Structures are given as structure tokens and as C-alpha cells.
């Protein structure tokens, strides 16, 4: 029987692996699927913790699903007229990118163990640190607006895991989800503008 600690640990590893896939995969649909699963695993991890009410963990999953749908619709529209705009490969080889994910995970884990913060559980802080690092890497290495947007959203997703555990105000939590939605809309707008240009 797997204990609660182990389930949390497995969820963490799943999140990091899925974020690594978002970083490494070049196919836009593959990226989106990995990102959606990452959001779901984040929600599942939040459900395992005592700091966050279960309803909020559900909202995290729902939020990821809505954002994925929005980006998928934008990507599909771009694909019909200018598919090359979605395929812009980062300059760095995928082998390096896939190695970066466990490296960032180990780095975040070491930092959290060395400098523990009493306000949130270590597992949430590790996930937050790893996702912010991977998200930053995705955003800065990518050449396509979809991947850059997914990088920013990965950072925000990681931050939300921490934010939900420390924030009591429902308005603030709602506004944070609104910010994710806004970034997804901006990403969709950038994809479609790029499509206009390419067409």
C-alpha cells in the first residue's frame, strides 16, 4: 500500500516529468497535452495537502483544462493556414532540455531543504521552484509564441501551487486564476498575429 507521503512524492515526480515533456517536445499538440496533464497533477498534489481546501484544488484542474482548450483552438486555427509558425524549434537540443528538468528539480529540492520556509509544505515549495525554473527555461528558449506562452503559464502554474496554500482571500485566488486566463488570451493573440504575418 502506498502511503500518503508516497502519493504526494509520486505526484511531484509526475509534475516534474510532465513539465520536462513540455520543455522537450516540439509538437504543439504534444506540448499542450503534457501541459494539461501537468496542471491536473498539480491539482492532485494540492488535494493531498492539508493546507489547501479540496474545492480550490478542483479549480486548479478546471483552470488548466480551460486554458488548454483555449490554446488548442488558437493552435488549430493557426495550423490550417500557417503550420510552420507552430513548429519553430528552440536552438537548444531536446536532450539538454530533458536533462534540465531533473536538474532543476534537484536544485529546488536542495534549496527548500537547506532553507525551509515555515509558511508552506516542502513538497509544494519544491514543485513551485521547479515549475518556475522549467517555465522560465521554456519561455526563454522558445521561438514560437505558443511555447513561450506555455512557459509563462508553467511559471504561473507553479506559483499558484504555492499561492493557494498561503492565500485565504477567495478574491485574490480568483484574480490569480484571472491572470492565467489573461496570459493564455495574450498567447492566443500572439499565435494568431503570427499566423496573420505568415499567411
Amino acid at each position, binding site marked *: 500500500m502506498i502511503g500518503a507521503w508516497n502519493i504526494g512524492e509520486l505526484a511531484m515526480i509526475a509534475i516534474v516529468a510532465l513539465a520536462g515533456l513540455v520543455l522537450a517536445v516540439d509538437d504543439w499538440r504534444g506540448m499542450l497535452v503534457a501541459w494539461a496533464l501537468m496542471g491536473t497533477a498539480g491539482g492532485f498534489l494540492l488535494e493531498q495537502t492539508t493546507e489547501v481546501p479540496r474545492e480550490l484544488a478542483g479549480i486548479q484542474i478546471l483552470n488548466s483544462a480551460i486554458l488548454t482548450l483555449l490554446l488548442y483552438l488558437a493552435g488549430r486555427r493557426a495550423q490550417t493556414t500557417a503550420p510552420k509558425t507552430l513548429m519553430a524549434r528552440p536552438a537548444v537540443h531536446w536532450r539538454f532540455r530533458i536533462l534540465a528538468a531533473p536538474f532543476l528539480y534537484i536544485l529546488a529540492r536542495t534549496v527548500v531543504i537547506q532553507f525551509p520556509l515555515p*509558511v508552506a509544505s516542502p513538497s509544494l515549495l519544491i514543485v513551485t521552484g521547479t515549475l*518556475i525554473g522549467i517555465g*522560465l527555461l521554456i*519561455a*526563454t528558449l522558445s521561438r514560437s*509564441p505558443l511555447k*513561450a*506562452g506555455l*512557459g*509563462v503559464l508553467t*511559471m*504561473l502554474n507553479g*506559483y499558484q501551487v504555492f*499561492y493557494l496554500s*498561503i*492565500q485565504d*482571500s477567495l*478574491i*485574490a485566488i480568483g*484574480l*490569480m486564476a*484571472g*491572470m492565467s486566463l*489573461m*496570459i493564455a488570451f*495574450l*498567447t492566443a*493573440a*500572439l499565435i494568431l*498575429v*503570427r499566423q*496573420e*504575418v505568415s499567411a
Partner: protein
Amino acid sequence: MSFDVNLPLLILIAAPFLSAPVIYPLRRTPLAAPAAAAVAAALVSFLWVASWPPVAIQQDQTVLGAPLVVFGRSLRLTETDRWALSTLWGCAALLFLTAWPFRFERRLYPIGLAAGGLWTIGLLLRPITLGVFFISSAALLLALTILGEGHGLEGAMQYLIAVSLGFLAWVTAVWAAEQAALNPGQLLWMTLTTVLIGMGMILWLGVWPAYRWVVLLFAEGAPVGAAFTVFLLNYGTWFWLLAWAQEFPWLAQLPGWSAGLQTMGILMTLSSALLALAERGWGAIGGYLWLASGGLLWLALGTGTVEGIYLSAWTMWMGIIALAGLAFGLAAHRRMSGSTESGRVPLDRGPWVIALLLGSGMALMNVPPLAGFTARWAFTRLLLPSHPLLALALIGSVGLLGWALLRELRAPVLEATPLRPMPRSAVWFGIAWWIAELGLLFASPWLGLHLETLAQAWIRVL
């Protein structure tokens, strides 16, 4: 919402959001720019014409009209906010008019109004905890104004990354500041707040090493949209930071506060001057000139002296005319040649465009006979006795920027470039701009009188 509604305040907040959807369908027509400018100018007039009876909410705090209470948070207007919003909307009106002749700036009008409205809410909301979401939404929304017709995507992507990271820093800073208020005397939270505010400012103001997006915005983006973006982020943050210092009085008393602001100012000014030498193109040089000018604003504020604060506010007011000139010059250059690269528009084919680029560049460098020189001269005199090396380095930075500008002027003309004729609007705008810039010299004493409220608000918290 409470029943005692402050109607003028409600109008002030709602007007930009009501007018943006009206202006959106007009954005491809010549009506959009004057309509957006009229709304912004009307908001400034409304701030001074409407009746705002003073209401004492605390023993030492008076607001203009009763606060508007929404979901337990209050929106209230103070005398300082009135000056802040007048500055922001006044500058916005000027930039809307600057964008008028250029079709590729069409996204600016509705988005500029909506972003201004969001920034207004962020400035007026108390406690400032939730304000960070509105301010950041405004900053994010501006990413769309940077996009021109087939250009500006790279800058917009980099801008989106910088602003999103900055948002994370600001929202964590709010949380750390709340923790500091809950645990008085704990240095950890205070230090964390200051560091996070510093990180947020580095990302939003384009301080080295996070400066690249500013240069890309001017070089590749829609120039007036880029100008609007950097103006709102710089000036808006100046007022937003004041709101922080008022909400958390201990912030400005921390030893790192002044040092942090000064370091940022020095980094912005000196790094821009050095990096400009390695860059080519009117747009990129314009970006560095703006960064250097912004650096002076923050450096002066960081001195924490009464003179320094006055000079910071003064530099801010002077800078907008120079920025509008630069934005128009770059937009006209882009319209003629399709880019802002060197050697595309020769002096004989676009004399007013080159004159505007050169003049606005000089104005951003604050060299004589342009109005900004008064502030630079006073600031140099203020620095010389205590920091002679820094004062000399700042003078040297002007020399380096001037060199970069001169090199751009003398760049060999690319013969094969097909050019569109110089826009006629460049002539009247050029004449108006030079008259305004030189007229500012004579209006200086009168304008200086109005800085009192802004400067005093900072002086009280420092």
C-alpha cells in the same frame, strides 16, 4: 457596494472601460485617435472640474469624496492621486494624438484606454494587496499595443515574459509585506519585501540585465505603442511605489530602499550609455536613450532629498514630450522605410523625421537648449559635492549617448532601399514638437509650481 456611492469617482473609474469598446470598432478609422485622446483629456478635466468634497477618513488622512467600497475594499482618491492620474491620462492623450497618422498603431487606442483604466483602479484601491492584480493586468494588456503590421512579435514575447515574472515578484512582495505587518520587527519579511520590489522594478523598468525587451520594443515594435508601454510602466510605477511607501511606512525607512533606487538609476543610465555603442539603428538607440532618461528619474528619487524628489518629478514631466517626439519620429521612419534600421531614410528624403529623431534624442539626453537640461544641470550640481565621480560618470554617459546618436546620423545611406514619401504629418508635428520643447523652457517656472503636491507626497514618506 455601499449605498453612499461617490458618483464622480465611479465615473472616473468606469469611463475608460465604457469608451474602449466604443473606440475598438473605430480603430481602423482616423476617428479613433482623437476620440481616445478626447476621453483621456476629458478624464483630466473631470478630475479638476468635478466636485470632490474633502472627507477625513483618518486623523491625518483626507480623501476627495467618500471612498467607494467594493467587496470590502475601498477605492479612494487623494490629492496626490489626482495629480498622478492627471499626469497619466494627460500623457496618454498626448501619445494617442501622436499615433494618429499611423495605421499600424491602431491597437493602441482601445487597449491603451483599458490599460489606463486598470492602472487607475490599481492606484486607487486600498489596501494595495489586490491592486497588484489590476496593475499587472494593465501591464500585460499592453503587450498587444506593441504589435505592428508584421513586426514586433519578438519584442512582445520578451515583454510578456518580463512582465509576467515581474508580476510574480510584485504579488510575492505584497504577501511578504503583509507578513511584515503581522510580525513587526522581523527583519526577514521586510528585507524580502524590499528585494522582491527591487526584482519587480528591474523587470518592469528594463534595468540591466533585464533591459533587452525595451530595446526590442523600440527597434521592432509599433513605436507609439512601445512608447505608451514604457511610459505607463515607468511613470505608473513611480506612483505605484509611492502608494507602497504610504501603505507600508517602514519600507522607505529601510537602509536598502534609497540605495536600491539609486543603484537601479545608475545601472539604467550607465549601462544604456555603454550598450548603445554596440547597437545600430534609430529604434535601438531610442530604446537606450529612454532607459538612460528613466535612470535619471529613479536616481534622483533615490537621493531621498527634497531637491532630488523635485528633480525626479520634474524629469518625469519633461520626459513625456521627448518620448512623444521619439515615438513619432520612429513611426514615421518605419512608415517610410518599413523599419527603424540605420541608413534607410536619408536626410534629404525625410528631413523632419531625422530632425525629430535627433531632437527627441537630445531631449532625452537632457542637453541644452532643450528643457530637460535644467533638471540635469540642477541634478549634477546636487551630486557634485557628495559624489563627484558619479556626477562625472553621468556627464560621460551623455557623451556616449550623443556619440551613438551622431553615428546614426552619419550612417551611410543604403541606396537600394525603396522609400515611401515622408508623411505630411511629420512637418506639422515636427514644428509643433520643436515649439513645445523650446516653449517648455519658458514654462518651466510655472510648471514647477505644480510639482509641489507630488514631491511633498514623497517627502512625507521618506
